[in-house]
């Protein structure tokens, strides 16, 4: 009897090691120690030597991209039920415009695609046949070192995640440092990025389709909140267990037809039903409807400080 817990712990450790090794599967996590692009990039053969190289930085390697290089990293197996954080540092040199000079470039930090003159990143989710199920793309607009972070769930049926980094305009040099893909830290919610202030005003993790004018903003006290404008929807997240869930939102009403909605979706993303909440910080309960396997958030006219979907139990 007394050996059982120890065995369980050992088994768990073994599983964690396996998961960790899968999660830290190449090409990410080794700080480009192998200095060989072929070890990291799926399309290494298409990249000219003058487009990509490794440079030392503070005792490790950074990837240097230029001449409109577009490096697609090797696909990484992924579990759609796990929340991940993909992070790296980046900066650029050259004549391109940066957010440090033109603050309106903050528009490009949302998942709205990337104009070709800017450096950018694209995260694609692929099924077993390597078909793209969904993607996130955003510009890399900071001239100085900046940590980019995408917290996400892959959509159902995803088997792989793929990262592509583009260096932007021909004369621009982009430096990439320390790419990491790992399970995200506990955010206190099933949905991603429940507190916009945590990752700051240039991070749109968890949001999928932004309404016209939607934007991360600074509140008068300096905290970051998300102004959803009219009809911003979040990315899907898994609702794996049957039973009760809560939707808890702290937000300000901000315009016409204010609404806070949690949609319940089936495996194909078809809406089954939904519940409405309010931004008053109270949890609104709902039983996961039959056939629902995932959820998504939908907001109309809110300034969100927090939004959490949590599992309560049976």
């Amino acid at each position, binding site marked *: 009897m007394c050996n059982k817990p120890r065995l369980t712990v050992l088994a768990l450790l073994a599983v964690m090691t396996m998961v960790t090794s899968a999660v830290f599967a190449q090409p990410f996590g080794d700080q480009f120690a192998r200095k060989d692009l072929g070890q990291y990039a799926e399309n290494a053969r298409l990249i000219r030597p003058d487009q990509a190289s490794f440079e030392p930085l503070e005792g490790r390697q950074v990837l240097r991209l230029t001449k409109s290089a577009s490096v697609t990293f090797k696909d990484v197996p992924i579990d759609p039920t796990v929340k991940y954080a993909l992070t790296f540092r980046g900066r650029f040199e050259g004549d391109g*415009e940066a957010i440090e000079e033109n603050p309106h470039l903050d528009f490009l930090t949302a998942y709205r695609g990337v104009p070709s003159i800017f450096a950018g990143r694209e995260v694609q989710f692929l099924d077993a046949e390597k078909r793209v199920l969904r993607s996130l793309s955003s510009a890399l607009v900071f001239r100085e070192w900046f940590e980019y972070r995408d917290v996400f769930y892959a959509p159902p049926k995803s088997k792989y995640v793929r990262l592509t980094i583009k260096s932007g305009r021909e004369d621009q040099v982009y430096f990439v440092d320390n790419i990491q893909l790992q399970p995200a830290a506990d955010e206190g919610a099933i949905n991603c990025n429940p507190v916009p202030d945590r990752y700051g005003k240039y991070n749109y993790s968890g949001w999928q389709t932004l309404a016209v004018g939607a*934007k991360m903003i600074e509140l008068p006290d300096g905290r970051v909140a998300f102004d959803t404008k009219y009809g911003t929807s979040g990315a899907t997240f898994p609702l794996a267990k049957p039973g009760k869930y809560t939707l808890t939102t702290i937000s*300000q009403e901000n315009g016409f037809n204010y609404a806070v909605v949690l949609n319940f979706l089936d495996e194909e993303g078809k809406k089954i*039903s939904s519940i409405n909440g309010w931004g008053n910080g109270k949890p609104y309960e709902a*039983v996961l409807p039959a056939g629902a396997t995932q959820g998504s958030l939908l907001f109309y006219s809110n300034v969100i400080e927090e939004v959490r979907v949590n599992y309560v139990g049976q």
Partner: protein
Amino acid sequence: MKWTALLSCLVCCSAAVQVWAADLVRGGKPAGEFVLAGDATQVEVFAVTDARKWIAEMTGATMPIVSTPTEDVGTKVFVGRNFAEPLFKEDMAALEGSDGYAIRERDGKVYVFGSRPRGTAYGVFGLLERNSDIIWARPHPRYGTIFGRHENLSLTQANLIDKPTFPYRGWGMGHPFHAPSGEWVLRNGGNQLGRGMEEAGWDMLHLAPHNLATPISRLFKDHPEYFAFDPLKGGRHGVTGGEGSMCLTNPKLPEVWAREVIREVHEREARTRRPVDAFLIGPGDNWFTCQCPECLKPIQLPQGGTLEMKDPDAVKDPLFRSTQIFMFLNEAMKTLKQEVPHVKMVSLAYIHMAEPPMVDIHPDMLIYFAPYPTSTMHFGLLDERQAGVWRDRFAKWMTKTKNLGFYEYFFSKPSPLAFYAGENLKTLGEHGMDPSKGYVYTEFDFDRGGPGWDVGAMNTWVIARLFWNPNQDVDALYRYYIQRTYRDAAPKMLEYYELIKNSWVDSGDTTYDNAHTSIPGVYAAMIVKKGLEPRVRQILGEAASMATHPSSQALIRRMSTRYASFTKGLNRMVAPNIQELSHDGDRFESVQWEKPEVLDEFKQTRRYGDILEASQATTLRAAHDGTHLYLRFTASDTQIAKAKARPKDNAEVWPAGDHGEIWFSGPGIPATVFAFDCNGNAYDARGYDRDWNSGWRVVTQKTDDGWEAIAVIPLSALGLQPGVESKLQWTAIREINHGNERPEWVSYRAVPLYSSFFPIIID
């Protein structure tokens, strides 16, 4: 009474009008008196004192109101049923059970009476309106009632009977109650005036409005099984905030629900000491319906066959739920008919209940149809431009019941929407609906001087008249209103009316207009997009100068002002064609800059909360010369010496610091910005690409009280052509930077970048 019989009656009555006259006021002195029984009801007292008030304002004479006729006063107007009953038995018989009234003269005395107090009140208002030039054009107490000043007032129209087609003429009243609006409804024939005029003495409709489940709400604690099952909540839930749904397949529920309705009726009648006229029911403002297994089973139809559920969601399968509800109501009606036969059960055909069910409706149930999600303010419901689903629903309802009316949202708007209200009401008659069981109702705005009344009062007035009698000539009603309201200015206002009528009633105009369409949106569609704006402005200007009556003047002025504000609200950048700009348009002293409109609605940029004035004024003017767009940006600054910007250079670098930005966006034109600062630094970019070059130039100058910029942009760079409609839109932003940690951001109408862009018109 059938529609045809009613029409004949009205025709006969008109023919019976005699040439006769009796003075009420002569030479500014009373020449008659009102005789009102000592036990007259509140509504009769109101009507007579109200009439006396208007007569006094018209003539300066305050007519006596007495309970016993005095001998030395001339014309006596006896008000009320009791005076008339012994003399006019035929009239009384004809009026019995209706809100109608008769005005009769006998032996030099005038009798005004209805079969009930409110009928008498309508008669008093009818007497005054028919024998003077007064019109209760809108409720507003200061300028809503128009009449001339006269030394004499004679009664010439004093032999008639008039009865409303519909017994229930409801006007939706919100909170807080607005007495002038309630009084206006009364003067114009409505019988639902709002919460402040509900006491028995007003003799208005006594209604008990409920959402379907609320009569049984108190039973939830002991009988949750009567209430709808919600799989999302994992159980059954009672009524919250007046909203809830029932488990309609519970076999006990029709009787239980009916008993609770009866209890409510009895309690209400005991409390108010008057009978309930109608119990109004509807689904509430939600689509939720019971999703217990039993309520999802196919419905066995009473006429045979079954109705399968296509989707548990009532939004997707309203027929299934509507059928379920009306079968339930038909069953409950058996008990209600026996126990409270005097109470009309009136069901709202709204939300999923708007779908005509697959069962007949109980013959004693009244239906009022709420076709609000379709364009009821622009087309008749059977018009081919109407959305097919709503056209079909209306047609089907007229096969399901003879007791059909409407729940409408005829808010005051500038368009002549009474034509469609009239068309729908007439359609009821043409399809054999029983007018005595027609409940017609519209929500409307209290007249607290709001924009709807300022631009659309005549529509609301005409609709009120159509609620009384839908067979009147709508166009003639409009003309009557205009003549009485605008008086000297009536010819011009008729011109205005013809202009908007021809624009809106144009069969090629498919503009959608329903309860949610904004008033400025209707103005834009009916006037601006048709190029009628200058003509309307001119007509109203001329009408204002022709009007001599102060209230007519006020009404025309208010309409003009509202239209001007709607125009401003369109936020258009109207660039006139000023050829002379090609010579000196880039010079600040050019007199040509006096011509364009000044856009000055620059406020502190706000994402939420109240809009705040900017610390410094900003204006923008636009014009073109056929090839270039000229934009003059004026940044007032009382501390111009503190303005912080990069020293002038020729680098195309974002002009951080004290600067202005003018943005354009439209189909095929990615976000395009022209930015400049107080030192003359300039930057243009398209799609965030500053390598793009528009070929523009900008000049700036600092003055004692700010700085200015004139930007000259090739029209071709923006895809603009003179006189060609463009979908390109604009916005403008200013940063006021005095070196503070937090500079002040200002934008046109306080709108943040990308939240809204505004239209451009290149004349």
